């Protein structure tokens, strides 16, 4: 009863579906983020999405769509910067993150409401609408389906880009593909835990899985379980204890990571 009780409310049902979709999507994409060491880029994309949400809010559009468009523009920007090679990638990312975030805050001054700012920064999973859920569902299926279709090339590219290029695979295409999928994924994370904490939803479940297994497919599975489990766990905590769901989700995932780390250390690996 304790487990089912919250779901007599429609908003909790929607929140649960959103948690499962986002937790799954962020964990699966997070495996690539961790293995390719793209955490910083992920962070940039979440912050890049922020001004898009504010603009959508100002014109009374869908926040999710606004975030998606802005994250995709940021992804393109990072891709273009990285190709020029006149600045280091982490410098380019650092500049982009702060600029996009500042731009969002600036726009926010026009709304004169910081209550909504808080839901963008820290997520508002209890306020998820049906339209949001449909968009989230489409993005989840689209991104995971694309990763599945291109899996063998993405693995080869992550492992040995030179060989991939030597057999005629366009590494530029794959790099852009990963950035695009990552941009879409960060938006799914933002819906659940907000702009500030999305990087954790991407990185922590995959990092935890990496500690527990040395193989790719099991890493995907473990990360998915940790991601979805943390999202649902955080939702329960926020319902029963009344804490911020985004923070609870991230801290549960971090606890999983901590336990995995201790397990690995105790085993002496």
């Amino acid at each position, binding site marked *: 009863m304790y487990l089912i009780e919250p779901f007599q409310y429609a908003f909790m049902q929607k929140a649960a579906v959103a948690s499962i979709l986002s937790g799954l999507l962020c964990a699966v994409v997070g495996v690539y983020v961790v293995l390719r060491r793209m955490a910083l880029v992920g962070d940039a994309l979440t912050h890049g999405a922020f001004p898009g949400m504010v603009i959508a809010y100002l014109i009374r559009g869908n926040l999710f769509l606004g975030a998606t468009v802005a994250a995709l523009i940021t992804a393109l920007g990072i891709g273009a910067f990285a190709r020029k090679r006149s600045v280091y990638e982490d410098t380019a990312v650092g500049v982009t993150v702060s600029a996009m975030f500042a731009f969002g805050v600036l726009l926010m001054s026009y709304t004169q409401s910081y209550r909504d700012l808080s839901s963008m920064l820290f997520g508002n999973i209890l306020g998820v609408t049906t339209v949001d859920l449909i968009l989230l569902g489409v993005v989840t299926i689209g991104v995971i389906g694309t990763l599945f279709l291109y899996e063998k090339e993405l693995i080869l590219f992550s492992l040995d880009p030179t060989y991939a290029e030597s*057999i*005629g*695979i366009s590494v530029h295409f794959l790099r852009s593909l990963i950035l695009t999928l990552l941009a879409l994924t960060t938006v799914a994370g933002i819906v659940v835990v907000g702009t500030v904490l999305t990087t954790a939803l991407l990185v922590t479940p995959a990092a935890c899985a990496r500690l527990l297994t040395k193989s790719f497919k099991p890493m995907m599975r473990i990360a998915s379980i940790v991601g979805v489990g943390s999202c649902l766990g955080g939702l329960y905590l926020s319902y029963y204890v009344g804490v911020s769901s985004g923070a609870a989700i991230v801290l549960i995932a971090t606890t999983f990571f901590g336990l995995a780390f201790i397990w690995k250390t105790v085993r002496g690996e």
Partner: protein
Amino acid sequence: MTDAHFPYGRRHHVDNVPEAKALVADAICIFYPGEADPVISNLSVSVPTGTRLALVGPNGSGKSTFLKACAGLLPIHSGTIRVYGNRVGLCHHRVAYVDQRNEIEWRFPIRVRELVMGGRYVHLGWFRSPGEKDQERVDQALEMLEIRNLEKRQIGDLSGGQRQKVLLARAFVQEADLLLLDEPMNALDKESRSVFSNFLAQLKPMGKTAIVATHHYEEGTDEFDDVFYLKE
């Protein structure tokens, strides 16, 4: 091929040029971006089919650069390179390039067998998974390089010599006609060295050509048919 096939390069098959040499480089120059002096200037070399050529020269003489250019990974500034009579990059599956091992992310969580299978991808193209024939090719390559016992090992747990053999196995399953090997004998102990010699020896009767950049060339051995010296 009867079923749908989406090769990586724009074209999978080009017409073979009859009696073309495996590789002909004619007066090539290669610059690195922003540098005034070329790494390779006015280099010409012709490698007949079936030759095992040692590419010898001091560090910085451009051995790796030359191999990369032949694999289509670096643009050449002037001159031409022809592979079996065709422009570089027209027929990816006929050329296998084996990098120096340090350019690979060895911590990536996959097994030896999966890495070797990567050599079949050029035949599969986008969206297709390896089939039975591909598995057989991988089995053969693992046997040939005597690493059958390692097939389930994570690549991160391999020694330097084992890593090298795994990469040679991947090049072999590609069924390429021209192999470009960059320092394949570094980090090989004596035993692995003989596995490599054996590998080269088996290429000969198959009519395959190998160009091997190496610090380990010894005159008078029958490992190579010919040697080409690059000057600094």
